[in-house]
């Protein structure tokens, strides 16, 4: 650009012949730090670090899964537990693994993945690392409604269904009071905090006013546990994730541009309101279905995306990484909760909070100094 008349536009048909000739002789290459998969006209660009990070997290998840199947009141080595998983070996082993540990393992995997996705989407769309289903009141809404249904009429399905309704109610309240999904992240987070506080107070009020037996029955809903969960909500969560994971990956791609200010994202052809609403809807469904299974699991939605970002790098929104990290976190915490004070079981929600918080602080202290997103 030294001479004023130099052809500076590379994309202009007339002015940029040298640049184009150069480009035509070089084949398409993956930009630095990405993997390019090409098939004919189709191409997919993956951040290298995110791909490696997801594989790493998947490997850790396998180890955590094997450990969750093996460890417990009767410890089984993987040599015995893995065949028992497919019904081979000692009948007692098969019973323990298939009937006791597998359902719990599945519930933990799904809950962790759902909370990880929900946290990742919420944090990205609010542009705030504090925005999680827990902090904007979705957990509190689910808990309040579930406790209300247990204290009122106790059936096996009702609390789970009510938890989902409560999650949706809290999200709708926060969204409505914040003035819609188009408003800036902070407002939504602060309004959500308020909604959560009110709903948390409702839960406590219900527990205080209820007869002691009903309060006892409702208690697990206020801490979060994977012990003896009914099958139906787990099935619902599995179905929900079958829809939400692809949806989250699609939305996550668009959300990448929403990390910029709205004006930039809109200028790049992103339908800002639509994407934000879609991301919020997926997050609420994931969080609601997860809370309907296990109750509010403290901190998972806050820690999983943070860990995923650490492993997968800053390129892109780590939806898949957060799901994997969430699953690892819940499985590991539940395994610890089952064994650390056996035969008494520590609810997984307490373990995630107790182990998760120091981990989160360590993560934040160890990351290089930078601004909050």
């Amino acid at each position, binding site marked *: 650009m030294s001479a004023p008349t130099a052809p500076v536009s590379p994309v*202009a048909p007339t002015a940029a012949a040298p*640049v*184009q000739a150069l*480009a035509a002789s070089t084949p398409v290459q993956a*930009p630095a730090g990405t993997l390019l998969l090409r098939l004919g006209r189709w191409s997919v*660009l993956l951040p290298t670090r995110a791909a490696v990070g997801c594989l790493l997290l998947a490997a850790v998840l396998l180890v955590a899964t094997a450990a969750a199947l093996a460890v417990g009141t009767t410890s089984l080595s993987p040599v015995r537990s893995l065949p028992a998983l497919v019904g081979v070996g000692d009948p007692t082993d098969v019973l323990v693994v298939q009937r006791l540990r597998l359902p719990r393992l599945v519930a933990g995997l799904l809950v962790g993945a759902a909370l990880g996705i929900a946290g990742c989407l919420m944090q990205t769309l609010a542009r705030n690392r504090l925005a999680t289903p827990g902090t904007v009141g979705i957990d509190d809404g689910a808990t309040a409604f579930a406790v209300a249904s247990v204290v009122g009429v106790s059936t096996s399905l009702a609390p789970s269904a009510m938890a989902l309704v409560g999650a949706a109610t809290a999200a709708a309240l926060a969204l409505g009071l914040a003035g819609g999904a188009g408003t800036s992240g902070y407002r939504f987070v602060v309004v959500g905090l308020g909604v959560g506080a009110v709903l948390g107070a409702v839960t406590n009020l219900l527990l205080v006013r209820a007869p002691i037996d009903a309060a006892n029955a409702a208690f697990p809903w206020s801490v979060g546990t994977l012990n003896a969960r009914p099958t139906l909500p787990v099935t619902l969560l599995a179905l929900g994730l079958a829809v939400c994971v692809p949806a989250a990956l699609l939305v996550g791609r668009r959300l990448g541009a929403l990390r910029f200010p709205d004006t*930039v994202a809109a200028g*790049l052809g992103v339908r800002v309101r639509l994407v934000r609403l879609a991301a919020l809807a997926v997050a609420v469904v994931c969080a609601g279905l997860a809370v309907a299974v296990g109750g509010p699991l403290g901190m998972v939605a806050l820690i999983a995306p943070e860990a995923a970002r650490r492993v997968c790098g*800053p390129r892109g929104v780590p939806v898949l990484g957060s799901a994997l990290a969430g699953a690892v976190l819940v499985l590991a915490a539940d395994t610890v909760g089952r064994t650390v004070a056996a035969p008494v079981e520590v609810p997984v929600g307490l373990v995630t909070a107790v182990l998760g918080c120091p981990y989160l602080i360590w993560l934040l202290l160890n990351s290089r100094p930078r*601004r909050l997103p």
Partner: protein
Amino acid sequence: MTPPTVLRADDLSLAYGRTTVVDSIGLDLPAGQLTAVVGPNGCGKSTLLAGLSRLHKPARGAVLLDGQVLARLPVREAARRIGLLPQSADAPDGMTVADLVRFGRQPHQGLLRQWSEQDQRAVDGALAAADVATLADRRLETLSGGQRQRAWIAMAVAQDTPVLLLDEPTAALDLGHQLEVFELLRGLAAAGRTVVVVVHDLTSACRYADHLVAMLAGQVVAEGAPREVVTTDLVRRLYGVESSVLRDPVTGCPVVVPCGPAA
């Protein structure tokens, strides 16, 4: 010989709530020219730019792109035809210059068309054009304000739109890089693009723009070739400043020398 109009504001009013910021503006932005929008702070320049780029819905009137109502175009198609560089934008942490510039290609990409030869050519060209090719792998937060500004300009260039709107693209730049950016924009206009730029420096606007639009209190008060439009009267009216308008001995362009506040 007047060039064809690509972008036209037709009786366009833009408002924030009940406050009208741009009031019934009719404006023809000529194709293949560099148009500079000037005016005092708060006169509605940035809002006009947002309106022209469909980010601000008209309270009245319409913006027409090649004769089509812009607000009715599909969002992604509009993003392939009009690019906007807003004033002082923030990027997420950890993003490199190349990452940022690649985002400019987003309107041209699809779920299974994420990186093509055309994308590569546009990104490489934009990096070179904005003079940030050597910074491609640097993180944005490690750059100076001027370098970051040029990275954003590269993103807008990579978007490869026939119409490019820039809001104070030279605000954080030193003299050398200001000139480079203006030369770059001139090059884009010479290659057939319609470039509209909001600038504060009247002399640069006169030197580089083909077409000057002067705004005051939400209205266009003067429009035309800089050497015909820029006078001591206009400067007094816009900024409340007495000035001498000289002629650049080399180019003949107006040079505004402020003398003091108007009486």
